[in-house]
């Protein structure tokens, strides 16, 4: 055991590796920008993404700083039971969305040229107001989701250089804005491939280092048992994972990913069904291996490193202590990659929400694609600056912010599934379901007496049931979209 953990800054190797890595990413963003010719390319790569790009981009967009810093940080206080956050449900995180909505989205994308979630909802519900509601919700929840990523950059910079966290937050924010502004989705998906590969390598190396540091599995588990046997059982050392929360996590990170606009959009980018399946196999394997190994490393860290300043630091500290500074910096770049690939995917999607869904569809219907492309770059900068401010002020831990933002967007599962499977679903029903869903989510999250009514399940469970009831009741009493629209969606 190493006893109390002290941060040991090694700034020169860290800066050298980081500058090289960011330089490569910036070059790719610039290169993709030269090849980005149309609005379709900018937002969803015009339905041309192949297997490797689709599979790795899906998993690297879903896996974030939350997965690589926040989740192992949370697990560090729980033990093996904490791995239930991602591991048992990981295999379903692409196949469930693909089965329930994927095939239909690929068909609709090819037939009618849909590019974003707003395109789908607006057309299905025959209402431009759906775009506005989605756009506002995306700004409200996706800005914090991006904020959580750059908070992670701050933690890494602090551990490796000793500098204050805001330096990492601002630095990462600027880099992401620069390459998203130039390359759009093409830049984002190309960098996603490199970032995704680096993330897998980081997970593997961190796991091996953590096992070696702990003296092998038997030694680690013996140490954990002598420290507190609850590290090896449910509900974990701090009681974090009772059965109700175990079930919640399995459903949360698989079924509810359908409501995330940045993941939903990826189906429109896939060129055919074969690509979708191969992407599922590649993406699922990548997600399962990365999540298992990095989270297991967080458990192993309990036996080797104690008394750390902040639980989010456990993975950077394992790398820093177990490897020489240059190697540690290379693999820490894998974690920076996890955050960057999530931000770039979300930043492009959020920019699309403001420029296409709110501006082009509601405010200025005559705006040309060319002017929207120009405007997108300015909007990317503005949103990026807001995200940097959010990261500097840090209103919570990486995991908490990520979970809150994810849950907010997950409410869109209700209008999406009803839109796909129920012909009588109406726009008013969908908007009412989303608004009531948000109020319910906030109440079940923030009010302890309401939270108790969820009986230990995550707030999204009762929220989804309530939103579905609202959807059915309001739709029954309001006008359904024209038959032509229904035919278009149900014949596809």
């Amino acid at each position: 055991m190493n006893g109390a953990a002290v941060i040991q800054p090694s700034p020169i190797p860290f800066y050298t590796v980081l500058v090289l890595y960011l330089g490569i990413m910036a070059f790719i963003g610039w290169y993709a920008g030269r090849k980005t010719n149309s609005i379709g390319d900018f937002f969803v790569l015009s339905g041309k993404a192949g297997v490797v790009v689709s599979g790795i981009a899906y998993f690297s967009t879903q896996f974030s700083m939350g997965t690589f810093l926040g989740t192992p940080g949370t697990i560090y206080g729980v033990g093996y039971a904490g791995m239930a956050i991602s591991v048992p449900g990981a295999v379903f995180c692409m196949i469930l969305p693909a089965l329930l909505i994927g095939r239909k989205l690929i068909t609709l994308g090819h037939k009618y040229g849909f590019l974003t979630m707003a395109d789908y909802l607006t057309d299905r519900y025959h209402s431009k107001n759906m775009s506005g509601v989605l756009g506002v919700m995306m700004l409200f929840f996706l800005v914090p989701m991006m904020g959580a990523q750059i908070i992670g950059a701050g933690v890494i910079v602090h551990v490796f250089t000793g500098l204050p966290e805001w330096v990492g937050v601002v630095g990462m924010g600027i880099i992401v804005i620069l390459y998203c502004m130039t390359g759009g989705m093409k830049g984002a998906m190309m960098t996603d491939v490199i970032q995704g590969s680096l993330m897998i390598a980081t997970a593997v190396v961190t796991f091996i280092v953590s096992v070696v540091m702990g003296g092998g599995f038997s030694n680690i588990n013996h140490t954990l048992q002598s420290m507190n046997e609850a590290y090896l059982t449910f509900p974990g050392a701090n009681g974090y994972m009772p059965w109700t929360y175990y079930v919640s996590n399995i459903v949360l990170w698989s079924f509810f990913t359908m409501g995330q606009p940045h993941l939903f959009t990826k189906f429109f980018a896939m060129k055919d069904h074969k690509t979708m399946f191969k992407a599922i196999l590649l993406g699922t394997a990548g997600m399962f291996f990365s999540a298992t190994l990095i989270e297991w490393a967080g458990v192993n860290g309990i036996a080797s490193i104690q008394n750390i300043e902040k639980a989010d630091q456990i993975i950077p500290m394992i790398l820093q202590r177990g490897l020489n500074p240059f190697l540690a910096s290379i693999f820490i770049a894998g974690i920076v990659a996890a955050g960057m690939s999530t931000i770039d995917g979300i930043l492009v999607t959020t920019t699309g929400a403001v420029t296409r869904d709110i501006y082009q569809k509601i405010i200025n219907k005559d705006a040309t694609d060319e002017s929207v492309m120009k405007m997108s770059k300015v909007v990317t900068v503005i949103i990026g600056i807001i995200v940097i401010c959010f990261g500097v002020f840090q209103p919570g831990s990486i995991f908490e912010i990520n979970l809150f933002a994810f849950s907010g967007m997950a409410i869109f599962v209700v209008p999406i599934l009803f839109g796909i499977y129920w012909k009588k679903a109406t726009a008013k029903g969908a908007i009412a379901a989303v608004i009531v869903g948000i109020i319910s989510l906030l109440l079940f999250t923030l009010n302890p007496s309401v939270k108790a009514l969820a009986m230990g399940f995550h707030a999204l469970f009762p929220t989804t049931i309530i939103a579905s009831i609202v959807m059915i009741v309001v739709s029954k009493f309001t006008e359904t979209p024209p038959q032509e629209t229904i035919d278009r969606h149900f014949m596809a």
Partner: protein
Amino acid sequence: MKKLFEKHFERTWLIIFLIMFVFIMIPFPFFYSETYIPAFGGVPLYIFGWFVHTAITFALIIIYYRMCMKRKEYHTYDEEDK
């Protein structure tokens, strides 16, 4: 059985995956245990239970993919790409 896959292909597969999805939520000791059951290297048994369940589900995804590729409706956009 063959008829079930032919007539209700999508629905049958959805049910298969939903069964696997619900199965892992059942608190069997090899998925969820409040007592310590050591397995290889002292690692709790439920970790290996998750791995086995994941391997089976992954194999089912491969079978589903192969069956889909034998169906016409999954090749609608192949020509477009060529």
